[in-house]
């Protein structure tokens, strides 16, 4: 079973985000919202209720002036594969409606809005806060509905939504490939909206299993880490930072734990 899922024909789409390059400008967030018909309200300053599939967090090293350092960390859905890549991600495991599922062929955790009845178990289970609940029906100011994309369905009150790694782009790319008589797509044919928009090119997206894709090498950097690795969620979003304090911010450690050792062990 395990072997079957890990053989080379199975794709595991993932990201490597270079935090040394990320400037926190927010282009990825806006590109994501425009691509995925994410709604907006008049007041979005209450961040708990603000739907952002991709959110950029501002981290600091906690030191006083003038030794303060800050770092930005973009957080899309981490698309957890679970131990052994069996697809037991925290959210998939708890969904009573199979509204969220793990794609064994792509490694993408889906969200099917018409199946979701809003129990929000997945939100409670997700350690990364990537899931958002629609407390209200989305309302677009007069005329602005015109900019909605037909590739992504608009969500309604009562459902949970999250980053899909722009799965519709994968579908469009695959359709095109089939149409042209190909069975597979090239790396550049499927890129997420955030990857494409990033002005400093800090996001790299591709198949983590495919040695020809840039992410394959990048994820093996000694400076690469994932968020909350010790939960064994086996996420597919890798971060790279040359700063130790940033790498340490990716997980929780006991006070007297030897941090880099603990991190290496995972």
């Amino acid at each position, binding site marked *: 079973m395990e072997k079957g899922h890990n053989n080379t024909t199975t794709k595991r789409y993932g990201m490597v985000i270079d935090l*040394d*390059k990320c*400037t*926190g*400008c*927010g*282009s990825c*967030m*806006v*590109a994501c*919202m*425009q*691509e995925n018909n994410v709604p*907006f309200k*008049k007041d*979005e*300053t209450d961040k708990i209720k603000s739907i*952002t599939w991709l959110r*950029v967090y*501002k981290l*600091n090293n906690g*030191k*006083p*002036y*003038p030794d*303060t*350092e*800050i*770092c930005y960390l973009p957080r899309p859905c981490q698309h957890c594969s679970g131990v052994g890549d069996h697809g037991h991600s925290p959210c998939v495991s708890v969904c*009573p*409606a199979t*509204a969220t599922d793990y794609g064994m062929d792509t490694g993408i955790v889906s969200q099917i809005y*018409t*199946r*979701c*009845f*809003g129990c929000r178990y997945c939100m409670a289970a997700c350690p990364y806060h990537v899931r958002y609940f629609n407390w209200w*029906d*989305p309302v677009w*100011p*007069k*005329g*602005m*509905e*015109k*900019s*909605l*994309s*037909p590739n992504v369905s*608009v969500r*309604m009150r*009562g*459902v949970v939504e999250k980053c899909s790694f722009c799965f519709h782009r994968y579908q469009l790319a695959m359709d095109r490939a089939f149409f042209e008589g190909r069975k597979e797509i090239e790396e550049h044919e499927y890129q997420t*909206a955030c990857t*494409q*928009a*990033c*002005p*400093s*090119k800090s996001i790299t997206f591709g198949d983590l299993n495919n040695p020809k894709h840039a992410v394959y090498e990048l994820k093996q950097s000694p400076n690469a880490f994932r968020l909350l690795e010790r939960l064994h969620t086996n996420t597919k979003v890798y971060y790279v930072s040359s700063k130790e304090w940033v790498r340490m911010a990716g997980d929780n450690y006991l006070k007297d734990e030897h941090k880099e050792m603990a991190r290496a062990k995972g």
Partner: protein
Amino acid sequence: MKLSRRCFLSFAVGAAAGINLTPLPWKLTDDLSIWTQMWPWTPVPPDGEYTFENTVCTLCPGGCGISVRKVDQRAVKIEGMKEHPVNNGGICVLGASGLQYLYGPFRVESPMKRVGNRGEGKWKKISWERAIAEVSEKLGEIRASGSPEKIAVISGNREGTIAGLWKRFLNVYGSPNFMTPASIEDSYEAALYLMQGAKGSVGIDLENANFVLSFGAGLLEGWGSPVRMFQASVKVREKGKVIQFEPRLSNTAAKVDKWVPIIPGTEAALAMAIAHVIIREKRYVKNFVDTATSGFKAYQDIVIKDYSPEQVAEITGVPESLIVEIAREFAEASKPVAICGRGEGRIPGNVHEIMAVLALNALVGNINSEGGIWSVPKPGYINWPDPDLDENALAGLQKGRVDSAGSEQYPFAKSLLDLFPKMINEEKSYGIEALLVSNANPLFTMPDNESVRKAFSKIPCIISFSSFMDETAQFADLILPNHIYLERYEDVSTPCMFQKPMLSLAKPVVKPEHDTMHTGDVIIKLAAAIGGSIADAFAWDSYEACLKETLGNQWDVLKKQVVKVDYGFAPNPWAYESKTGKMEFVATAINKSPDSIIGIPHYEDNGIEGEAGNYILIPYDTMSLSTGYAASTPYMLKIVSDKVLYHEDTVIQVNPETALELGLNEGSYAVLATAVGEARVKVTLYDGIMPNVIAMPSGLGHTGYDDYMGNGKGVNINQVLGTVEDPVTGLNAAWGIRAKLTKA
């Protein structure tokens, strides 16, 4: 049959088990979600044919190429244009959310005439014929009264055919008053002119540099062409190093190799001290300095006498040893460059500071050479025949400008919009009868808002050409709305700080959403309606015809490929346009007497307005807030941190030490008072700011547009900021203002 309790229970349990074995519960949950989701008001975006169209984003002077994704005739996404020389596929938040301007309800949908009091918001829709007739009658009247100089244009377009048409219109009409919102580019151009005689714009060959000293330039805050700067700074850091001098740990300071905090407004002194070390240790490029420059001796004397690292450490707060270390590193780098400008560069700044930075570049020999600071010739594609001016026009043009640009006091300035309110309010100049505002929103973007509003109140007729119900449009008497950038043709010349001459063509990618008209067409129609020599000067049928004729054979090329860059361009580092043919350390154009230092780079303590002893308030810029003509979109406001804007309140950054002195905590409310105005703000404690300095975000506090566009959210920083006149250029040199902060 009698139903016993036992029987009933077995039946109930059996039924429950039975139902659970059927698909019914699952079908019910599924149906439940469907029943509760199929609302008729949930939009279902119509599908259609997908296409991409390339054009240029003109929301800022960055000149990025964009690809607009369309579904049939609807635009659904804006992406960066692949392999574009400026942005290479990247896009900023403003560009990415551009469709919200296109489809927003805050657009002016047809020509409007004010019916209530000014600013009351009562409007009447009128036809285009009527609107043009009203404006032309009004302008005709003013001209007939014999004072054509009493009209003025504020134009967001600095170069290109729209600016060209406005200038031509004013010229034949008889008014010299073409004003543009000021920016760091004006000061750079003035400095280049003073030191090199160059009449072009400034270009920074950042991509080829490997050591950048940035005196406050917000490379990651929107300075120059934002996306290009993002990519260039990554490139520089891969090869070398970037050091940022800034009072606050901005995004730029956080992401470069080293942040050096500096007391606001003392950057020029630091540049001079770095020069001091380089000269003292004879590390400068002697060949360049000896051959291609003049006035080095006088500059050297000042630098050595007044700007030793110990003296400057005191002024700037930067430790002496660090100044020496950085100076050595800078001089030793193979491709060093020094740049300056605050935040995104909206404030023009002190010309002597730019001169000090240019002098520093000259010492390392990178003026006009690879990886350095270039002067880029202005585009020369507009070659319209000179118009015939009648007597009325000639008389008007003699009067001098209302903003005193080009006067005896400020001979080098082309436009001094920031002085305009003062000239009107203090009656230092003739009054203005009609003000035409095109592609600009001065009532929001200009410092000391209140005085701008006061000056505008004295102008009997204000005509806005804005596409949006912005602050200036709200205050206007007539609005003649322009198409927005995705609906119109426009030529775009070399972007801000770009090092190669470039020309691009923005073209309509969607049909106009509303009953709007291209401002270019409006100018041509107005001219025709006024008649006489004015009509004769505008022989074109339409703006499109004018643009087509102006671009000549480039029209077809640009329509196809959007952009054209003169990649072969390289300025000459050994010859300058100044009278001496050299790069002048002492600008002979202004240094009339040998004792004067006005033409020599130096530090002047004039960047901060107000009484000493108070805290220094500095504005800060962030990519997620637009500070210019185009207001922040709903998507931009959505990503603004709650430490910048919290519900209706602007959040200011204060060092914890300063906050302690003032008895302020995280989330406290405070009153910020300056000589210009007062504002109620919320406080956040930020370790990344110098003690005694307060940072406030710019771009908030709109009162125009609508609630989704930030109407009533936060305080406009221009309510508390003032201006300081630069002694040479007259441009606004204020880096900040002294402020009092008290617990509310």
